[in-house]
C-alpha cells in the first residue's frame, strides 16, 4: 500500500523536477552562450553573470522553501496567507531578473553584433532561457498551492514548453565548433535516456559541440528497444524515468551486457553518497550529478569511450596472441603444443567416467626432402599447406589434427579399432588423389603413418612412442602405408 506520505513524496519530487530542470537548463544555455560569445571574441557580459546569480538565488530560495516545508511535518494551517505571499514573491523575484536581463542581452546583441549564424544561435539560446524561466512560473504556483494543502494535479511536464524548445532546436541546425577528438572516438554511438526532452537536447547539443553523435530515448521501453537495435558504446541514463526506473533499467542492461561491453553513466539530481554507491554497485561505470557541468560531462564521456576502445583493442590483441600461441603459422592448423595437450587430456580422461576410446595417428609425408629439392622451399610449403588442409577437413571436431614439426602431423580421433581401418583406407586414398598445383605443375604425394589405440597404454607419451615406432616400420617397409597395432594398410601403387 502506498502511504499518504509516500504519495506526497512522489508529488514533491515531481514538483522539484519541474522546478529544478528548467533552472539547470538555464545554466546550461548560459554556458553555451558564453562559449559562442568567446568564439566571436566578444567579452562575456555582466548580464550573463546577473542571470547566473539570479538562477542560483532561485534554486536556493526553492531549496529553502522546500526544506522548510518537508521538515515542518506539514500541517497546512501552520502558515499564514502572508507567508505564502512572501514565498511566492521570493521565488518570482529572481525569475523577473532572469527574463529582464535576457531581454536586455537580446536587444544588445541585435544592435551590436553583426548578423551571423552564431549571433542567431546566441539569440535563440537567450530566448530559450527566457522561455525556461517562464515555464518555472507554473512550477512555483504548483509548489505554493501544494504546500498550502491544495490538491495538485500533475501534468506531464509542461508540454507547450517542450514543443517550443523542439522548434527552437530544429531552427538551430548543427553547431560547427568542436574540440579535437580522434575520429575513432567521434564515431562512437551514445544513447541518452531521459524523459525530459529539454535535458536530452541540451546533452545532445553539448556532445555535438565536440563532434560526438548521440541517440535519445525518452522512456525505459524505448531505451531497451534502442539497445536491442544496436548496442551503443555508452549510455547516459537518467535515474528517474516514467515507466521503468533508471536503476531497474541498469539491472536489465547488465543481465545481457557487462560493464565493459556496455558502459553506463548514471545521471541524477540525487547526489547523496548512498545513491551514487548503489548505482556503481549495480554496474554503472560512473555518475554525473545534475546540474550537469559541461566540462565534467565531456571528460567523463570521453574517458569512458576511450576506456572502451582500449579494452576492445586489448581484447583483439589477446585474441591474436592466443591464435599465435595455438596455431601453426604456416598451415593455420593446431600447433605441436595444442595437439599434445589434447592427447594428454584425453588419456587423463580415460581414467574418468566420460571415457571415450580414441586412436592417434602420426603422419609423415613420403620423400619430402626430394619434394623440397625439386620444387624449392616455397613448393614444399604449398604441399604442407595443402596436406594440412586435407587432414583438417577429414579430421573434424571433436577429432583434431596438428602439425608437430617439419612434414610430421599428429591426429587424435575418437573412433574404435573397427572403424579405424575403413577411415584410414579412405584417407590414404584421398591423400594420393589430392593434386597440388604449383607453378603450372601438378604434384601428388603419399604419406606414411603410425597408429596407436588408447587401450594400449594409459600414458600419453607411451602412446605417441608406439605410434612413432609404427610410423618407422611403415617407412621401412616401403612407405605409402599405415601400420596399426597388428595390421598394415597400404595405398595403391
Amino acid at each position: 500500500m502506498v502511504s499518504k506520505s509516500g504519495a506526497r513524496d512522489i508529488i514533491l519530487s515531481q514538483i522539484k523536477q519541474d522546478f529544478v530542470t528548467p533552472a539547470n537548463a538555464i545554466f546550461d544555455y548560459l554556458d553555451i552562450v558564453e562559449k559562442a560569445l568567446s568564439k566571436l571574441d566578444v567579452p562575456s557580459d555582466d548580464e550573463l553573470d546577473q542571470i547566473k546569480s539570479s538562477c542560483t538565488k532561485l534554486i536556493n530560495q526553492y531549496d529553502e522553501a522546500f526544506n522548510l516545508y518537508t521538515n515542518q511535518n506539514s500541517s497546512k494551517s501552520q502558515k499564514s496567507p502572508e507567508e505564502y505571499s512572501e514565498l511566492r514573491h521570493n521565488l518570482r523575484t529572481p525569475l523577473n531578473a532572469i527574463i529582464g536581463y535576457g531581454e536586455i542581452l537580446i536587444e544588445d546583441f541585435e544592435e551590436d553584433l553583426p548578423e551571423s549564424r552564431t549571433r542567431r544561435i546566441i539569440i535563440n539560446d537567450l530566448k530559450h532561457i527566457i522561455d525556461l524561466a517562464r515555464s518555472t512560473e507554473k512550477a512555483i504556483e504548483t509548489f505554493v498551492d501544494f504546500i498550502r494543502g491544495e490538491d495538485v494535479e500533475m501534468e506531464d511536464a509542461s508540454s507547450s514548453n517542450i514543443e517550443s524548445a523542439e522548434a527552437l532546436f530544429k531552427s538551430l541546425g548543427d553547431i560547427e565548433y568542436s574540440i579535437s577528438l580522434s575520429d575513432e572516438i567521434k564515431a562512437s554511438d551514445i544513447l541518452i535516456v531521459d524523459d525530459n526532452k529539454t535535458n536530452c537536447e541540451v546533452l545532445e547539443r553539448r556532445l555535438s559541440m565536440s563532434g560526438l553523435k548521440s541517440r535519445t530515448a525518452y522512456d525505459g521501453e524505448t531505451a531497451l528497444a534502442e539497445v536491442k537495435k544496436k548496442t551503443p558504446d555508452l549510455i547516459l541514463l537518467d535515474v528517474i524515468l516514467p515507466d521503468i526506473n533508471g536503476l531497474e533499467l541498469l539491472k536489465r542492461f547488465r543481465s545481457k551486457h557487462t560493464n565493459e561491453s556496455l558502459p553506463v553513466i548514471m545521471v541524477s539530481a540525487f547526489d547523496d553518497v548512498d545513491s551514487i554507491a548503489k548505482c556503481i554497485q549495480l554496474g554503472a561505470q560512473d555518475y554525473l550529478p545534475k546540474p550537469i557541468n559541461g566540462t565534467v560531462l565531456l571528460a567523463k564521456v570521453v574517458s569512458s569511450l576511450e576506456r572502451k576502445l582500449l579494452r576492445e583493442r586489448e581484447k583483439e590483441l589477446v585474441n591474436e596472441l592466443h591464435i599465435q600461441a595455438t596455431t601453426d603459422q604456416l598451415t593455420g592448423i593446431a600447433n605441436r603444443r595444442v595437439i599434445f595437450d589434447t592427447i594428454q587430456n584425453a588419456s587423463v580422461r580415460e581414467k574418468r567416467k566420460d571415457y571415450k576410446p580414441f586412436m592417434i595417428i602420426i603422419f609423415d609425408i613420403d620423400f619430402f626432402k626430394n619434394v623440397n629439392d625439386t620444387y624449392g622451399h616455397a613448393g614444399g610449403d604449398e604441399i604442407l599447406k595443402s596436406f594440412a588442409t586435407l587432414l583438417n577437413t577429414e579430421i573434424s571436431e571433436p577429432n583434431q589434427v596438428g602439425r608437430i614439426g617439419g612434414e610430421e602431423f599428429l591426429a587424435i580421433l575418437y573412433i574404435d579399432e573397427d572403424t579405424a581401418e575403413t577411415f584410414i583406407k579412405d584417407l590414404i586414398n584421398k591423400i594420393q588423389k589430392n593434386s597440388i598445383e604449383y607453378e603450372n605443375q601438378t604434384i601428388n604425394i603419399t604419406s606414411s603413418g603410425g597408429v596407436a589405440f588408447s587401450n594400449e597404454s594409459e600414458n600419453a607419451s607411451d602412446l605417441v612412442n608406439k605410434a612413432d615406432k609404427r610410423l618407422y616400420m611403415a617407412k621401412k617397409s616401403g612407405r605409402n602405408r599405415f601400420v596399426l597395432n597388428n595390421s598394415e594398410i597400404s595405398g595403391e601403387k
Partner: protein
Amino acid sequence: MKILYVEDNEMNRDMLSRRLSRRGYEVLLAFDGQAGLDMMKSEKPDLVLMDMGLPVVDGWDATTQAKADPEISSIPIIALTAHALESDKQKALDCGADDFDTKPVDFKRLLSKIDSFLA
C-alpha cells in the same frame, strides 16, 4: 518623463531601471515603501512602479497612504506583485493602485500600461 520605481531587490531594480532608461524615461529609485512615499513628495514623479513586497512599509500600505495624501494622490501607481490571482489584483486596486501587473514582468505590456498613463 519621470518614473519612480520602488523595489527592494537590487537585481530587479538595476534590470528594470536600465530597461526604462533605454526607452528614454528618467528613472528614480527607492528601496522601501517609506522612501518611496518620501520621494513621491519631494520629486513628484509622473508615475510610480510599486513593488508590493517591500520592507519597512510594504507596497500595499505605501499605496494606501499615497492615495490618502492629497499632495501626491494624483500620481498614478502601477502595482507590481508576484501574485497572479484575481483576488490580489482586486486587493491592489482596493488600495488605490491605478493599475496592476505581475512579476515576472512582461516588459512590452508594462510599457504600454506606462504609456497609457503618460500619454
